[in-house]
């Protein structure tokens, strides 16, 4: 029986990440929405997205720094985390204030401390959970066939676009902290 995701050879994951970072930077939404994209040259992509809660002035937004760990990419989706912008890490018990409060967004879970990852029963970590994140598959979820991460169809953009939508005024309610 399979238990969650599985590793992808580093050179393959790195090549897929590098290819899709280039595609992402060329996409019109980067300029359209002011996404900031950074890449470490390996398998870690960092994006900064702007969130707007109801009642915010047009030019007001809250920035969120999100890491997309592509170490199993693109056989599997990236592992997504909202992180401390200073450390680019998320430490349970210390960094919850960097999480957004998102309400009513369909099929989207954000857990500040989740325990129950496949193959790692003692691991406690942030879980961003929808079918275009790796955590979804590592936390005992099964998508409908048309929702399943599909290499060659889904890519970094597909995941980031869902995060962008969740951070807009229909669903975003400000920082947790």
């Amino acid at each position, binding site marked *: 029986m399979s238990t969650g995701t599985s590793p992808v050879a580093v050179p393959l994951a790195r090549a897929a990440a590098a290819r899709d970072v280039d595609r992402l930077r060329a996409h019109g939404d980067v300029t359209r929405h002011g996404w900031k994209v950074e890449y470490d040259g390996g398998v870690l992509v960092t994006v900064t997205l702007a969130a707007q809660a109801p009642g915010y002035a047009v030019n007001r937004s809250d920035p969120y720094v999100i890491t997309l760990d592509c170490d199993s990419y693109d056989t599997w989706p990236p592992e997504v985390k909202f992180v401390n912008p200073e450390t680019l890490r998320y430490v349970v018990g210390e960094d919850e204030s960097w999480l957004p409060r998102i309400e009513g967004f369909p*099929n989207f879970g954000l857990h500040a401390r989740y325990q129950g990852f496949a193959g790692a029963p003692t691991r406690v970590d942030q879980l961003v959970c929808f079918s275009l994140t790796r955590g979804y598959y590592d936390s005992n979820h099964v998508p409908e066939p048309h929702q399943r991460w599909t290499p060659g169809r889904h890519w970094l953009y*597909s995941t980031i676009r869902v995060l962008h939508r969740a951070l807009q005024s229909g669903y975003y309610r400000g920082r947790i902290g």
Partner: protein
Amino acid sequence: MSTDEAHAEYEKVEKDVPKQGHVVFTITYDDTGAETKVTAAGGWRLREVIDKAYEALGETPRPGDRVEAKGVSLEPYFNMRVEEFVDRKIAPDLHFNIVSHTGGAAEPGARTRP
């Protein structure tokens, strides 16, 4: 310029420049990031614009697909004519997104691979 080249250039201009009274919509398919443009006559229904976009994108509607402009569903306007849709400035930048339904946290089950 040869006759063939001139004809090709003419066709390109015909294709790229909307005729008077026509409206050019940009549609992004969120699932793949693909973008397309649809040139619509004022008398078209919005639903026809969406149908053309799917066709141009090489996609078919999936269960739960939603068409949005800046996060707002356009479904209430699907039967509206393009000219009225534009006059009412419902999506002033004429940019739509087709949003596919993702799987979410409410569907626990056996572990699986994509």
